[in-house]
């Protein structure tokens, strides 16, 4: 049976053989969206400081995407995440540089621990063969999700990184070890190619090196400096290493003003497991606490 009527309601009334049955209704059409109001809504979702600087639609879109949690893999070290605008951005290469100051490898392990605890697969390309699985596990790394690769020179490291990135690993960390590097330095083009590979597959990439290697390929460069060891015990009493404090400086970022600094304090596992009494004994030299220091200073704040 079929009927034709000028209105949909009339069609149902004509077809309905049993009076009293509820008439189906159509889903109401969505209200019209004004382009201006939609942009205002998106702008309102952003941080006010950032929203004021957005001038184009493309930039607005990118900023909005960056605020989504899935676009960033945090290192969960608050000072570093604050410097990088939340953490390691997927599809971008971040370089961490530090020769004298200690703490670079600890940051690498923290990033790996954060990624694997989120269920992501991560790869550590360990040029210096420095990784200690026991310590990695203590740091919170899910070793089942971590691919450990031990190349012999920089060239092999870059080639391995490219292969691994194209496979779909969400975080690829290239740690080139300590000075002097093993093998010749890779050309700038190799790092550019690596950065583009990461961008094409949406993988976060962290390069940890004693001095800048990636050149223009990196999205951000963070430099570690002024590492100081923290010792428990004073006077004639025996000393016990408690941790180190380092300063991180944002040397370069394509979208964040460079120059930001923050201090990070890293503890040896024994110091973390020890009682608060032992922590209280630490001769604090810089005013920082022994827990991870999340204070972040902008360059204009520094004296």
């Amino acid at each position, binding site marked *: 049976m079929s009927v034709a009527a000028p209105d949909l309601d009339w069609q149902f009334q004509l077809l309905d053989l049993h009076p009293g049955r509820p008439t189906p209704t159509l889903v109401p059409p969505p209200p019209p969206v004004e382009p201006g109001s939609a942009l205002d809504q998106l702008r309102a979702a952003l941080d006010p400081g950032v929203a004021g600087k957005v001038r184009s639609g493309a930039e607005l879109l990118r900023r909005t995407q960056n605020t989504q949690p899935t676009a960033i*893999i945090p290192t*969960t*070290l608050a000072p570093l995440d604050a410097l990088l605008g939340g953490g390691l951005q997927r599809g971008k290469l971040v370089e961490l540089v530090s020769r*004298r*100051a*200690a*703490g670079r*490898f*600890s940051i*690498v*392990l*923290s990033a790996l*621990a*954060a990624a694997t*605890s*989120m*269920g*992501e*697969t991560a790869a550590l390309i360990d040029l210096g*063969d*420095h*990784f*200690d*699985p*026991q*310590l*990695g*596990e203590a*740091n*919170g790394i899910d*070793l*089942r999700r971590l*691919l*450990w*690769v031990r*190349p012999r020179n920089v060239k*092999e490291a870059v*080639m*391995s990184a490219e*292969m*691994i990135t*194209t*496979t*779909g*690993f*969400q975080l690829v960390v290239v740690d080139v070890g*300590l000075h002097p590097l093993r093998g010749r330095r890779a050309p700038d083009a190799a790092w550019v190619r690596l950065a583009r590979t990461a961008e094409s597959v949406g993988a976060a990439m962290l390069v940890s090196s004693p001095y800048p290697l990636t050149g223009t390929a990196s999205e951000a460069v963070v430099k570690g400096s002024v*590492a100081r060891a923290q*010792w428990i015990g004073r006077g004639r009493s*025996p*000393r*016990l*290493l408690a*941790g*180190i404090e380092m300063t991180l400086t944002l040397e370069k970022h394509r979208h964040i003003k460079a120059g930001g600094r923050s201090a990070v304090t*890293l*503890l*040896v596992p024994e110091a*973390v497991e020890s009682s608060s009494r032992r922590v209280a004994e630490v001769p604090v030299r810089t005013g920082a606490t022994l827990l*991870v220091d999340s204070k972040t200073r902008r360059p204009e704040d520094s004296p």
Partner: protein
Amino acid sequence: MTARIACFYVPMFPLAARLRSEPELLHEAVAIVEGNGNSAHVVAATRRARTKGIRPGLSLAQARSLLPKLIARGRDAECERTAQEALFEAAETFSPRVEDAGEGVVYVDIAGMNRHYDNELDLARSAMRAADGVGLPARVGIAASKLAARVAAELPKSPTVVDPGKESEFLAPLPLARLTPQLDAASTLRRWGIGSIGELASLPESEVASRLGELGRELHYAARGIDPRPLIPRPLPPDFREGMDLEWPLVALEPFLFIANAALDRLSKRMELQGFACKRLELTMTLEPDGFAARAIDLPAPTRDVKTMLTLLRLDLEKAPPGAPVVGFTLVAHPDRPRRAQLTLFGPAALSPEKLATTIARLVSLLGDGRVGMAMAVDGHLPERYTLGDYAPPPPPTTRPSPEKSRGLLAVRVFRPPIPVEVHTREADGETHIAAIQGEGDLSGSVRTSSGPWRVESSWWTDAPAAREYWDVELEGGGVYRVYQGASTEWFVDARYD
């Protein structure tokens, strides 16, 4: 259910097998010869050679007199065996019940496959395409019996489908030679005035049997389209093989890898047909003047990637060359099921098991054994302990969890092996302190603060006990290191706090 049998038949099988291994000869005038010296005779020839008058049965000398530029190749048992295997596997993609009849003939039980194809002609065309995919130009015939299917497949206009129950009618007009080419009783039957299969089938079975014995009974059955024995399917082979006897000995690696690449490619396609991937690759090379060289390569994960397998093969051959010219080879791939993974819509992205296996195999080929894998913690007390396992990440969680907050632990960079250094100590207040260390590069300088010792004893019950005293030292120039003194009183730096 009515029995339905499909027969894959490759005409001039020795030639087809050779062309599968050497496809560049397809458009040349090539003849396959059997026998040596004066007894060498042609068994098959390409179309180009046949147009010049080369026929099976001609001696090689006769053939060369007709066509001096004729390319003659001997029958290659290895090529034919692998071609037969490939044909079998192509047939197996249609049904698990496949009988290998040898010499380019395979029977497939296709009963019940009408659910997958509109009609049997479509099925037969698909079968021809599948055989083409493994490099063999097969003809296909479908009938209710193996014999009728084979006769139908041998007809030039392929595919041929014999309707159910029409086998006798189909066979009746055909000459007796179609029934069995090597028929000894043909002359006897010809004397009786019997020239076609139908005439034989019309004779009383008992009369034929009483005159020709058991052979006569079987012939009579065959003429009526009844198989003397049912289809006997072959179980799956435990491995996949490809190989070749070479025309001349190879002494360089590159030419050998060029041929091995083609063989690996064929292996990969055959494994793909069965849904397998290679877990272990074995290579056996026949050497000149005699002897064999065999080696096995265990792949880190099942893969079908030809480039990866070839790279591993190259590395292995470069590491240990065969030491003599190679005149033949066989590649054996031991199959395994490729890894599978269930993807999630809301959790983190999972790795494709196939891609991961290929990447790991490539990394191993680039870096060598023991340099790629999953780091595993080991029970014990010595800090440098570790072990490496196969990397097989668990499936990702179904939802995306928040990351666990960092514990902010200070990590150490382990030095493998530990670096020997010279250590200067001083006594103060009745205690020993480290005053300076002297080593290479940054590992030199006065010590600002030292802490220790901590004694570690391990494996004292074994022949290689470890007794060490560990210290933490901070150098004036920067850097905090972990040093230890072993039982031999030598000092080592085994880690840097970083």
